[in-house]
């Protein structure tokens, strides 16, 4: 019965209509994102904004993604095709909403990222999809040997059928969650966001005609493709290689990672090499790799390219199936962000050889995470909290790196201490920049952060970090960023990545600094003096790296 709506031929639309519809699509995804954040209950969404929204056409191509978290594109890329493989359009109805999270049957990149997708029907035909993703702070304190340990796998199934909640499906999901009440509230916020997406898209189609809106969507993809091709064509042709290692608590030895970037004409090939996938949560699905590559190439070549499917067309991304960077079932994937960050920096390292003035040195190259779980003293219910901590961002060819920020594929806010402490039995006693953590250079790498947590009731903590053994590289004679590390207070013992905190005990997470750019000897003397006065560097570094006395 239901069919797919046809777009108008792109060639028949004038550039001005296309521009106006592009702005309208962008404002729809902005508005759905704002709705999700404002209606949500969990700290991870309402304050840390760990969520994304997007619109897709009926073929599952990204029409527009809101500017939230780049890695979330990885969960979106393959979602609609997965749904279409399982369900016939003829059987879908307005008001159906699909829920999913699985890395191997739902297009996800890790299980806590739960996606809600709703088809938009106009005149009985499928015109588009409104989709949002929320990182649910749940599925913690499990294992990471394979994906079955990491939480509940949800293939795309209907949570709503023609507007009716399928409460049996919802009950099954909630029973597998550690904090079901919070999950339920956040799922309602996700539904509210999609409701707005459907309304706004239908209003846009009513105004311009469905064919025109979809045609403009295709034209915008062509436009993004043209811009991407133009930016690639402006690069010199050639092949550049770069290698680094991956290290963290979960892996016994440093793992070699490398990339070979080839530019020829208006096309780019990125061929990655990595060891076999591991019995650890650091594996990346192919869609996570794609999302990472799209992010970094767009950032270097033209940050203004529209975030739609067109930008991917000139890029060819390869990695051996079954390897760390293109894992297959049943690899665990929860901590894939650590690896994604390293991949983004690998590409920067390769491109630095071609266009040094446009890249930056290695960022902190990690996404440092603390997961907490405990029982609420007042009622014995489980509480779960996770947060990610920024670090240094790489120095640029003409300026220092940014201090204490989220880099590359992640972009979540911190949680205000005044929002954290009233909700969880924790106390944050310090949150500060780390002296000497930015790599020395003509331009200094960004500084890492140190955050100190104290338990007020017993809880378990697990940390996820990287760069404890390796360092974030500098470029062109500059120094590397400082290591990431965990500092355990008296009486606290980390068993691998986990520890129990008794009331009053503390630990600190220190995130890595970033690499510098250019030889330290060329650093402006006034900048060295200012760094010293501000305690950004110690007098030892001023003396040894910059040859400054006093």
């Amino acid at each position, binding site marked *: 019965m239901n069919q797919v709506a046809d777009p108008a031929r792109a060639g028949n639309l*004038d*550039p*001005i209509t*296309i*521009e*106006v519809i592009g*702005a309208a699509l962008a*404002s729809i995804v*902005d508005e759905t994102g*704002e709705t999700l*954040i*404002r*209606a*949500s*209950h969990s*700290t991870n969404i*309402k*304050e840390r904004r760990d969520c994304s929204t997007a619109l897709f056409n009926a073929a599952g191509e990204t029409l527009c993604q809101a500017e939230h978290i*780049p890695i979330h594109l990885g969960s979106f890329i393959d979602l609609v095709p997965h749904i279409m493989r399982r369900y016939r359009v003829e059987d879908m109805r307005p008001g159906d909403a699909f829920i999913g999270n699985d890395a191997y049957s739902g297009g996800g990149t890790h299980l806590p990222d739960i996606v809600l997708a709703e088809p938009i029907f106009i005149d009985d035909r499928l015109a588009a999809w409104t989709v949002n993703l929320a990182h649910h702070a749940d599925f913690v304190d499990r294992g990471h040997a394979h994906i079955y340990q990491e939480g509940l796998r949800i293939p795309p199934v209907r949570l709503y059928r023609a507007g009716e909640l399928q409460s049996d499906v919802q009950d099954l999901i909630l029973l597998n969650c550690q904090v079901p009440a919070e999950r339920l509230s956040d799922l*309602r*916020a996700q*539904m*509210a966001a999609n*409701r*707005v997406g459907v309304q*706004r898209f239908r209003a846009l189609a009513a105004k311009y005609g469905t064919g025109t809106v979809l045609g403009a969507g295709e034209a915008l993809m062509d*436009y993004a493709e*043209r*811009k991407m091709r*133009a930016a690639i064509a402006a690069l010199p042709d050639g092949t550049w290689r770069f290698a680094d290692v991956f290290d963290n608590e979960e892996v016994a030895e440093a793992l070699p990672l490398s990339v070979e970037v080839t530019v020829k004409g208006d096309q780019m090939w990125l061929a990655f090499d990595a060891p076999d996938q591991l019995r650890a949560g650091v594996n990346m699905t192919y869609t996570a790799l794609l999302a990472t590559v799209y*992010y970094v190439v*767009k*950032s270097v070549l*033209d*940050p*203004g390219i529209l975030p739609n499917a067109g930008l991917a067309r000139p890029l060819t991304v390869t990695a051996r199936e079954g390897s760390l960077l293109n894992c297959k079932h049943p690899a665990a994937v929860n901590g894939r962000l650590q690896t994604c960050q390293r991949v983004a920096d690998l590409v920067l390292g390769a491109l630095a050889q071609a266009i040094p003035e446009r*890249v930056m040195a290695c960022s902190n190259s990690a996404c440092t995470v603390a997961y907490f779980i405990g029982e609420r003293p007042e009622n014995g219910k489980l509480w779960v909290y996770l947060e990610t901590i920024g670090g240094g961002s790489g120095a*640029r060819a003409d*300026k220092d790196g*940014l*201090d*204490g*920020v*989220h*880099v590359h594929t992640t972009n*979540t*806010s*911190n949680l*205000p201490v*005044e*929002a954290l*402490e009233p909700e969880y039995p924790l*106390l944050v*006693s310090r*949150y*500060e920049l780390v002296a000497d953590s930015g790599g020395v250079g003509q331009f200094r790498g960004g500084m890492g952060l140190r955050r100190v947590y104290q338990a007020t009731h017993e809880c378990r903590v697990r940390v996820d970090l990287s760069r404890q053994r390796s360092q974030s590289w500098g470029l062109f004679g500059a120094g590397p960023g400082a290591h990431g590390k965990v500092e355990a207070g008296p009486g606290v013992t980390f068993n691998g990545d986990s520890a129990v905190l008794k009331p009053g005990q503390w630990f600190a997470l220190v995130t890595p600094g970033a690499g510098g750019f250019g030889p330290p000897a060329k650093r402006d003397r006034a900048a060295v003096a200012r760094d010293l*006065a*501000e*305690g*950004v560097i110690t007098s030892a570094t001023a003396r040894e790296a910059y040859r400054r006395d006093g």
Partner: protein
Amino acid sequence: MSQWRVGVDSGGTFTDICLFDSRAGRVEVWKVASTPDDPSRGIAQAVEEGMRRVASDTERPAAAVVYFGHGTTVATNALIQHRGVKTGLITTDGFRDLLEIGRQKRPDLYDLHADKPLTLVPRDLRLEVPERVRHTGEIDRPLDEERMRAAARDLKVAGVRAVAVSFLYGFVRPEHEKRAVEILREELPDAFISAGHEVAPEFREYERLSTVVLNAYLGPVMEGYVRNLSPRLEGLGMTVAPHLTQSNGGVIGFSTAADLPVRTVLSGPSTGVVGAQAIGALAGFDDLITFDMGGTSTDVALLQGGRCGLATEATVHGYPIKAPMLDIHTVGAGGGSIAYIDAGGLLKVGPRSSGADPGPVCYDKGNSEPAVTDANVVLQTLNPQHLLGGRMPIRQDLAKAAVGRLADQLGLGLMETAQGILSVVTGNMARAIRVISVQRGHDPRDYTLMAFGGAGPLHAARLARELEIGRVLVPANPGILCAMGLLMTDLRADFSVTRLLPAAERSADAVAAAFAALEERAERWFERESIAVPARRLVRSVDMRYHGQNYELSVPVPAGAITQATMRALAAGFADAHRQRYGFATDDDPVQLVTLRVEAIGVVQKAELKAQPDGGPDASAAIVGRRPVWLPEAGDFVATPIYAREALRAGNRFAGPAVVEQMDATTLVPPGMTARVDAWLNLVLETAA
């Protein structure tokens, strides 16, 4: 003897003054060049010249001024140009870097070369002192007064002129902050001291910190401004206390403004909203979208029932500010914005602007990239020979050549390209208006578009059509609306307190007590502003949410004593608001009251414009000529009558296409719209039925 009420809008280019004789009901306007290095000179000059034109006392021309209000960009400009003072910061031990870390987000998601806004206090002037309060108000660690005093002395040695203090949970239990302020005043008696619990007593430590730091950074600048302006006005014989507009659109006395400069960063644009509000009320339109389009930027705001929404927090020039601010949205596009074709082949307009100098190509001052104004000159919606009532000659041939170069690249005709530039800029404006309307759940079609600023009236009808708005209102003097608005508004101040309480009957007493305290503060403000008791008004509201959410919806508090019935009404009001905004309401989660607010209004005598006698529908006497204007509806030039605005009489009616010219603005009435002049000489454009 006449009594003059005076409004002054001190802008970047001009200082406008509007003088109103409250006895005779006469309005006069005057304009002088602004003096950005010390705006008080331009203001004093405007007052002196303006008053000399109307008052007989040449020695003391301002003696007849009974009210003085103005909008200022002093705080905004000091912020944009980083011309605040050397400022120190005192924080809880372990948190001095929060000012730099912020919410740990990078300034741009994709641009590797973007930078954060300058941190206003360098790290060596950010000092930590041992102290810690918990969220419950319990003291975890008492303030170390010796360390506090040592920090104050260090800042004195460093030569700071202002100090901000912001401790964790200072809004819950302010005694540590209060003690720190005492010590700072002892050690640095000449410095401007600002504390978190006074400036922004609400949760989220970074945004509060940012606000209090900005307040300190701008404090001495605003004090200096007040110190310069007050004697200048007194020297002209003025005896009344000056007032200025805050970012919330409320007008307050100078001393309050000097204590809380962070509340005046949107003083300029909010003055325009206040003016639009007053003119709209007079003309009988309460639901308005204001469209203030200038040379480089455009401010838009939405007024429902005559009121503009108040944001309790916004990011201004990269710095978060927790202060009541009118929900004004600014886009970087105006008449001077430049049109170009980007790498992907699409036509784009702005945010780069040709500014006042060199200005658009048609000014012939050396610019060759076409601006929005050039497109209008090509289309002849703007006079193709001269602007500013004949004072500025322009070169249409240069504008045509510049737009033509774009047309060649696009493969479109000259006229289609010029019209395309307008369509793109109109699209940008429409997106801005959607942010303040659609995204806040308001349908723009229910509103009247009020157009002012130099370029607003020219683009308003097209913008209205894009948004399907059926009515446009162009005030009599669109260029000086801000100055005029100052004479048509009441005094206003906002008071609020955060009290996390369940929205249940048992909270009635606590809510009543909190409102009583807020109302007492409002009464003290009324006293300070010398507002007579019958002129005092109070409006109460509560920000509410489901327990667990962090964003609130505002719910009005019914009149009368706070009782259990009030609490039930609030809970019902919240459920309605939540259903309207998010499409659902639930009984699963308890509802919380978060912030209680009281708005205090001091009703003052306002400029009352006199209704003009009806001059009949025939507008033909105002026609000063015809010229061909290119209209997309016809796809061609159409001979269009040109009306002189000053010759239009109340009651006049005419149909589009038509162009209305006045000294500082041009209004386009496109085909399919009619225009009428109301009794206050506003031009009302409506879609023909």
